[in-house]
């Protein structure tokens, strides 16, 4: 919650005070909560730096599909908006500080490196994101559907997946009575 209080991790001579950095990635403030915006290339480095900085608890991993969102303005300069965004919520179990990592993921290559090797607790949340959004976590130990059936077609939480579009299950098996 206390976003800018921790100056020690900011990089040495940042010329523009208006663009703060944390773990070499742009830092923004969202309603008093600290948000770090790494790129996909620096995703693991930033995550590891956060882990070494004491954020030992990966609270959750989730994603957002920004397909229908017109005019997003909450991204800092230099971060190119993409359709998907993977969000990792981290907390420090001792100081109770929280940060959020948000990485932009393009739709034509929906892949992100897995956080499993840093926080094994990312296993099921990442499976849920894969199931619901079709984002692949590279090097995840067991990336398969978790809430939907294994043979389900489509990823329900994508914005182009209509609410009413439910294929009829067990149709080809015919009625038993």
């Amino acid at each position, binding site marked *: 919650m206390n976003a800018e209080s921790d100056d020690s991790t900011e990089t040495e001579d940042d010329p523009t005070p208006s663009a703060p950095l944390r773990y070499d990635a742009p830092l923004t403030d969202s309603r008093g909560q600290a948000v770090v915006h790494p790129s996909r290339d620096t995703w693991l480095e930033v995550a590891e730096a956060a882990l070494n900085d004491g954020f030992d608890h*990966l*609270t959750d991993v989730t994603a957002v599909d920004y397909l229908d969102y017109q005019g997003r303005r909450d991204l800092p300069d230099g971060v190119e908006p993409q359709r998907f965004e993977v969000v990792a919520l981290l907390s420090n179990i001792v100081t109770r500080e929280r940060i959020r990592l948000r990485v932009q993921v393009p739709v034509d290559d929906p892949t992100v490196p897995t956080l*499993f090797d840093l926080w094994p607790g990312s296993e099921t949340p990442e499976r849920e994101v894969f199931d619901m959004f079709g984002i692949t976590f590279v090097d995840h130990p067991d990336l398969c559907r978790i809430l939907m059936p294994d043979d389900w077609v489509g990823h329900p939480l994508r914005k182009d997946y209509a*609410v009413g579009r439910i294929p009829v299950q067990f149709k080809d098996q015919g009625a038993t009575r």
Partner: protein
Amino acid sequence: MSVTESTDTSDEPVVDPTERVRRRGDDSAVLRMSEAEAAEVGNDPHLHADDQRVLLNMGPSHPSTHGVLRLMLEMEGETVLRSKPVIGYLHTGMEKQGEQLSYMQGSTNVTRMDYASPLFTELAFSLATETLLEIEIPERATWIRMLMCELNRLGSHFLFMATNGMDLGAVGMMIYGWREREEVLRFLEKVTGLRMNHNYIRPGGVAADLPDGWEYDIARLLEMIPPRLKEYDTLMTGQPIWRGRLQGVGAMSAEEAIALSATGPVLRSAGVPSDLRRDEPYLAYDQVEFDVIVGTYGDCYDRYAIRLNEIRESVRIIGQILEAMPSGDYRVQDKKVTPPPRARIDESMEALIHHFKIFTEGYKVPAGEVYAAVESPRGELGVYMVSDGSSHPYRMHVRAPSFVNLQTMPHMMRDGLIADGVAIISSVDPIMGEVDR
């Protein structure tokens, strides 16, 4: 077994607990196998002919799996080697549904997730919405929320006592746990009109003020519960069979629990004093006194004892709320969020129009994204909400504690007996509605 062999095994290098949960292959505790692979193994009699390993399905319809949890177990005799919880049987797309409903309707949706403690999901949803709206709710509404949530925590923990006892063969306990929960539910019904799925805590406050005479009901509850807890102690806590059944079963270290993102009683049982009510006080938890109950061994007994003592702490908190309940409004008087009172509709055209608009269109919430977390009976319950400035959440994600805590199960079950597995499932206390959402 020769003596040299037994000394060899004791010389095994000590493995860092967090390394143990990171393992990927056959020495992992998690049975990472798809349905198809499992079916293949099951159909091939020669695959495991040399050892006695079998794959066993437990659930989804099994009396000890708390609804529709299925466990895929790799067994050797009675010993569980690897396991994997298979979930999704109760998935109803509530997060997708949350994007279709306005903020006003949203609490009706989220309350159906954790059906044993529905008020907490409503609270997390409301706190997230209020942070986005940047509104401050009245003091009385805050304290009513706290009162109702602590009562709900009682109800949820009583339900745990009942099911935990039942799962372990103390069937009498089931009736007692249910009996106490019923008393709590009776009060919740009196206030909210419903026994569950209350939709009582809404963005902007609560749905209705406390009924007349609520103090007497609460005082009666506070008088009734402590002696009943003594009965629990007699029936279970000090009883050798109960202790023998739970102590040392499903033990987990603090490092493992943190690495696996556990929260709530599962994390606290391993000795980590983590309770959002104290660590990141929301509502008015910084104005009441209570202790965070912490375990030592991270076993099933600790998780039982933590919940039993949390009932005592909740009783303590409710006693303080009874003393300190302020007067005032029970919902914010911001006309943007709160519909006009029923009486105004009859006399004012504007009020009628406003009432119609707020219920058909809902209110607009400024764009932004926010995460709000509360301490539910099962752990950290958070809502991550993205608003695009319209009257519907653009994305509403619920960080369900049961869902995340489930992944600790294979690690607790490893090398234990299948009968202990039942104790472990019970001690994690998963609510499948929340797991599958």
